[in-house]
């Protein structure tokens, strides 16, 4: 039986991966082919500043498109540099007007199927070629998984860069595996935050965010901390001497930096000096997950309890009040009951009705958003469990269990509840993972800096990389959450086995 199960699990994982692949390919395809590329500049302030400098305006636009993967772009200067070397005098000669290099550039690049045009003011030539949509899709996947290794950094100014792994301690004195020659200094390390063992060897890269959160890889946008940077005192050794300084840099994100300035040399022994900041507040993902998971626990705890009790007291006062609550919550608009609840929370309980008043550090900020989110969840869980319980109460096995002499309570808790919970159990993984997507209405009402707004705003901002990345992530986790739900059900329901092929007696 276990053998069959393994086969089934493998098959399901494969199917899940295929569906994730299909959905994200379709999304990449649609985003690149259906959204006009001119629209990506809609929110770009920089471009508006360049409006009266046509040459730079043109250059900026094409460089941005190139970085977003729409086209290949090459200027005459770059082409000359690639032929004569970076600092050669021949480069400036080639760029002088009337130089024969103009003809050469035009001819050679047109031969490579580039479109060649001249800049409006200086008349310098540039060439560009569209990248076919299919190639863009393939490139997206090719860049998806990035593996760090000791031969990754190629710095011509630093030919003596050591390459290899070594054990060390990080700034807080925890053991870590570090490396030289890699992009990241710390490869594997341990700390007190979930999941305790961390790595930098494999990174997922889904493009960079643009025009909002410009230049930051999209996964970092949703995963990095927010608010003010958090500084702390660090003591480390530089050149055999102990140095102590205040910094907000997270040493685990240190990357290779080719050119060190004086300040860097005071803090770092090697070229790994480019790190991200530590922030005081959790990431968007973190805030949404905190609020979501707390409200899910409340919804399940309270909702299931009152649903079960309502079923036990069917048609009595408690049941009627519960049903009244469910009807109230499901019939009036979400925004309305959240607003009512927020007012109640602020006037009577004195809680902040906007998240930023007290900030992410303060526990009180989370109370109203969490409770607001649970209001609907409680109603939903109560409605379903009550309904499943009532279904089960009329089942023959319940009649028989009663006729065995078990009391109503014994029948309820030994027989009915478990049967009624099966469909609920199936939906739990999906609900847990659903919290990652954030809650749009609740989060915008309380001005919570969470995930809820990300998807709609990335669409309205034409932040293509973000749209694709979010679609990919949500598809991936949903497909696996459903799979997890199926596995959970096989644990609680003996009738369902994942070895579907081998029929039981």
């Amino acid at each position, binding site marked *: 039986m276990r053998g069959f199960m393994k086969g089934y699990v493998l098959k399901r994982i494969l199917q899940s991966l295929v569906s994730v692949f299909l959905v994200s390919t379709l999304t990449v395809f649609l985003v690149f082919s259906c959204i006009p590329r001119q629209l990506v500049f809609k929110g770009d302030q920089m471009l508006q500043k360049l409006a009266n400098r046509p040459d730079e305006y043109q250059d900026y636009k094409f460089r941005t498109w190139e970085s977003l993967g729409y086209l290949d772009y090459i200027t005459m200067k770059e082409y000359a540099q690639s032929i004569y070397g970076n600092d050669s005098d021949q480069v400036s000669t080639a760029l002088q007007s009337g130089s024969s290099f103009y003809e050469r550039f035009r001819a050679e690049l047109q031969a490579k199927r580039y479109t060649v045009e001249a800049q409006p003011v200086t008349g310098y030539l540039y060439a560009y070629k569209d990248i076919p949509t299919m190639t863009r899709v393939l490139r997206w996947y090719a860049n998806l998984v990035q593996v760090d290794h000791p031969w990754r950094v190629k710095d011509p100014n630093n030919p003596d860069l050591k390459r290899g792994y070594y054990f060390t301690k990080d700034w807080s004195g925890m053991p870590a595996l570090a490396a030289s020659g890699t992009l990241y200094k710390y490869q594997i390390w341990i700390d007190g935050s979930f999941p305790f063992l961390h790595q930098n060897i494999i990174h997922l890269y889904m493009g960079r965010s643009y025009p909002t959160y410009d230049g930051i890889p999209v996964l970092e946008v949703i995963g990095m901390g927010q608010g003010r940077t958090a500084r702390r005192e660090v003591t480390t050794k530089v050149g055999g001497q102990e140095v102590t300084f205040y910094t907000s840099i997270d040493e685990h994100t240190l990357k290779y930096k080719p050119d060190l300035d004086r300040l860097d040399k005071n803090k770092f022994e090697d070229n790994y000096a480019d790190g991200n900041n530590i922030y005081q507040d959790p990431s968007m993902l973190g805030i949404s997950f905190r609020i979501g998971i707390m409200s899910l626990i409340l919804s399940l705890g309270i909702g299931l309890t009152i649903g079960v009790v309502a079923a036990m007291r069917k048609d009595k006062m408690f049941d009627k009040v519960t049903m009244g609550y469910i009807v109230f919550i499901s019939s009036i608009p979400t925004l309305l009951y959240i607003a009512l609840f927020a007012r109640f929370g602020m006037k009577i309980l004195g809680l902040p009705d906007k998240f930023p008043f007290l900030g992410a550090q303060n526990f009180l900020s989370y109370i109203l958003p969490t409770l607001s989110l649970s209001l609907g969840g409680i109603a939903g869980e109560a409605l379903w469990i009550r309904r499943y319980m009532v279904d089960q109460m009329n089942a023959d*096995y319940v009649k028989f269990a009663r*006729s*065995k*002499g078990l009391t109503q309570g014994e029948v309820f808790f030994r027989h009915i509840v478990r049967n009624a919970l099966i469909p609920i159990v199936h939906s739990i993984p999906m609900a847990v993972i659903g919290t990652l997507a954030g809650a749009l209405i609740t989060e915008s009402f309380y001005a919570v800096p969470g995930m809820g707004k990300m998807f709609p705003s990335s669409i309205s901002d034409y932040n293509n990389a973000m749209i694709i990345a979010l679609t990919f992530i949500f598809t991936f986790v949903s497909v696996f959450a459903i799979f997890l739900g199926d596995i959970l059900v096989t644990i609680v*329901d*003996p009738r369902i086995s994942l070895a579907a092929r081998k029929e*039981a*007696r």
Partner: protein
Amino acid sequence: MDTPNIILSAKDLVVKFRVRNKELTAIRHISLDLFEGETLAIVGESGSGKTVLTKTFTGMLESNGRIDNGSIIFEGQELTKLKTDKQWETIRGAKISTVFQDPMTSLNPLKRIGIQITEVIEKHQKLPSAEAKKIALNLMERVGIKNAEQRFTDYPFQYSGGMRQRIVIAIALACKPRILICDEPTTALDVTIQAQILDLIRNLQREYGFTTIYITHDLGVVANVADRVAVMYAGQIVEYGTVREIFYDPKHPYTWALISSLPTLAEKDKPLYAIPGTPPTLFSDIKGDAFAPRNRYALKIDFEEEPPFYQVSPTHFAKTWLLDPRAPQAEPPDAVKIMRERGRKNTKQTSEAQQ
């Protein structure tokens, strides 16, 4: 033949239900004695109150139903006074057990077979689980489950329908009840399994000495297993007697109609007999004999006054005006005459065999 002990006695029982703010009378003044060790079959069409009657013996009436009048005495105890689960604890499942119609759904699908048996033993006999398991295994073997030890930890879905009904019977008998109520125990099973289950119940009855009440509309089953038969119509018992008396010499026109509709008695090339009309609604008071509107032998008085029970023999009673000395002689239908003939032959054969 000495008079057997009465184990359960219902007197003038009335059961009412509240349905959509209307009062429905499901049982109308039933009196019934159950003798120790006998097998009583209660027959009647759907909605005649067979199941409701037996539910009052175990306090299993739905929450909208109540016993309006009458008494049920079981081993000297007044059952109509018991209200809560706690009060019923020593009776239900311990002294009076029930086997339901559909074995496919009578067991909790998520619990192992063994646990469902030991649950009732632990509940009523307050035994440690190891001993309860021993009793359960013994029971499983008694009801004909091979390698009981192995199948103890199986789930219901791993059992066939017949096997599940055996388990249901094992659970019902786990505490050696005095009365076993079988509510259409074989309806959901195929014919070969039906016979096995009926045999099993009969053998176990001989062994344990309990009293059985069969609720059924299958007259074939009745003829096979019952000692006595009670015929119910519209919340009343209209005729009762020994199985021979009911089959070979029925008196009530409703019993006649039932026997006439037996397919085995039908003649070739003639349509099967069906009782015309539908049973009366139980929401309103019924005047006279409830069967009168569908009865082609109905007398004028049947529509005006309810008939009393007339005694036919010391064991045979029927509730019809036809037995009144003032009533005209009614010619029973052909099917009943055939049955009478068979009965006569049967008696002759048995008496010859005895000689």
